[in-house]
C-alpha cells in the first residue's frame, strides 16, 4: 500500500527540502521503495540537496507534458537503491501542474510499487503548493519556532484540512508537525517559542523536533543528506522522525537543553 506524503510549510526557507531529502533517504534506508518529487517548478533544488543534480536528464514537467516516460525521468540514487528522485523543471511554466496530470503520475508511481511518495512543496500557497498537497494521504508541516513561520503553518494546516482530494471526499489527511531549527538553550532563556507553545497554537500532533545545527548546511554543501552519517544530532533527530513515521514508538529528543558542566555554565 503506497502512501503519498506532502512536506509543506507556507513560508520559505524553513527546511522543507532538507526534510524531504532526509525523510525520503531515511525511509529508503529502512528498505522502503521511496520516491521524492520536487514540486517547485522553475526553482529545482531537491536534486542538489540529494546530490544528484548532474544526473537530471528529464524532469517532472517533461513527464506531465508527455515528453518523457516516468521511468526514464526517475533518478535512482547511487548510494541507496530504494531511493528515487523526480526533479522539478528549471523552466518556469506555471500551467505545467494540473490535478489531472499530477494524479496520473502519482497513480503510475503507486503501480510501480513505491511504498512512499514524498512530495516536496514549493513555498507559498499557490498552484504548486496546492498540487503538492492535493493527492496526499499524510502531511508534514515544517515550522520554525518563529512568528511568521507559525502563522504561515497555521494557514497551510487550514488548506490541508479543506483543499485536498481526501478532504473533498470527507476522508481528511493526517497532518503532523515538524519543528526545525530548534534551540533548547534559547527556549530556556525565553528567547524562542517552545515546542509546547507551538503545539498549543497550531493544534497538530508533533512528529519531531530537529535541533538547530551547522550539520544541515554542511550536508547540503556536500549533497549528502544528514541521515547518512548517523553520528550527528540532526541525523538522529531525522531518523527518529522516520521511525515514528513508519509507525514505531520513539521518545521525543532534542527538546531539553543538554546538561553542561559547571565550568561551561559559568564561563560559557
Amino acid at each position, binding site marked *: 500500500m503506497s502512501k503519498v506524503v506532502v512536506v509543506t510549510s507556507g513560508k520559505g526557507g524553513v527546511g522543507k527540502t532538507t526534510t524531504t531529502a532526509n525523510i525520503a533517504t531515511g525511509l529508503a534506508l529502512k528498505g522502503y521503495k521511496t520516491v521524492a518529487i520536487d514540486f517547485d517548478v522553475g526553482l529545482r533544488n531537491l536534486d542538489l540537496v540529494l546530490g544528484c543534480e548532474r544526473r537530471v536528464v528529464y524532469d517532472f514537467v517533461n513527464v506531465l507534458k508527455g515528453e518523457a516516460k516516468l521511468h526514464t525521468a526517475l533518478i535512482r540514487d547511487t548510494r541507496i537503491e530504494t531511493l528515487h528522485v523526480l526533479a522539478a523543471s528549471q523552466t518556469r511554466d506555471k500551467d505545467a501542474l494540473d490535478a489531472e496530470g499530477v494524479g496520473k503520475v502519482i497513480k503510475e508511481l503507486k503501480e510501480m510499487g513505491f511504498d512512499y511518495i514524498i512530495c516536496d512543496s514549493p513555498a507559498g500557497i499557490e498552484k504548486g503548493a496546492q498540487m503538492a498537497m492535493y493527492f496526499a494521504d499524510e502531511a508534514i508541516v515544517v515550522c520554525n519556532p*518563529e*512568528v511568521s513561520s*507559525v*502563522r504561515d503553518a*497555521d*494557514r497551510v494546516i*487550514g488548506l490541508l*484540512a*479543506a483543499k485536498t482530494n481526501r478532504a473533498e471526499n470527507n476522508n481528511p489527511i493526517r497532518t503532523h508537525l515538524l519543528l526545525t531549527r530548534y534551540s533548547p538553550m534559547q*527556549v530556556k*532563556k*525565553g*528567547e*524562542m*517559542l*517552545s515546542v509546547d*507553545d507551538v503545539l498549543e*497554537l*497550531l493544534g497538530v500532533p508533533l512528529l519531531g523536533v530537529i535541533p538547530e545545527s551547522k550539520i544541515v548546511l554542511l550536508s547540503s554543501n556536500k549533497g549528502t543528506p544528514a541521515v547518512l552519517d548517523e553520528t550527528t544530532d540532526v541525523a538522529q533527530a531525522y531518523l527518529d522522525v522516520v521511525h515514528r513515521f513508519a509507525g514505531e514508538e520513539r521518545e521525543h529528543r532534542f527538546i531539553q537543553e543538554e546538561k553542561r558542566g559547571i565550568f561551561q*555554565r*559559568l*564561563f*560559557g
Partner: protein
Amino acid sequence: MALFESVVDYFRRTPKTASIAKDRLSVIVARERASTRGGADYLPQLQQELLAVLAKYENIDLQHVSVKLDKTGDCEVLELNITLPEQFVAKKAHAAV
C-alpha cells in the same frame, strides 16, 4: 560572564520575547482562522469590498467591519458586523432632528 548575565536576567522584570511572540500569535492565528476557515475563502475579499463601498460614504476602516461564517450542523450563518464610528451616529441623529 554567563553567571553575571543570569543574575541580571533574574532581576530584570521585562517580559521575555518568546511570550510576547506567543501572545501576538494567539491573537492573529485566531483572527485568521475565523476569517479563512470553514470552506468560504472569499470572506477576506468580501470584507475588503464591503469596506470599499462603506468608505465611499464614511470614514471607516478594516477594524469596523467583521465578516464571520459560523457553522451549526448543516446550517451556515454569514454574519456581517459593521460598527459605525461615533461621529457618524451623532451626525445621523442630528440630521433626524
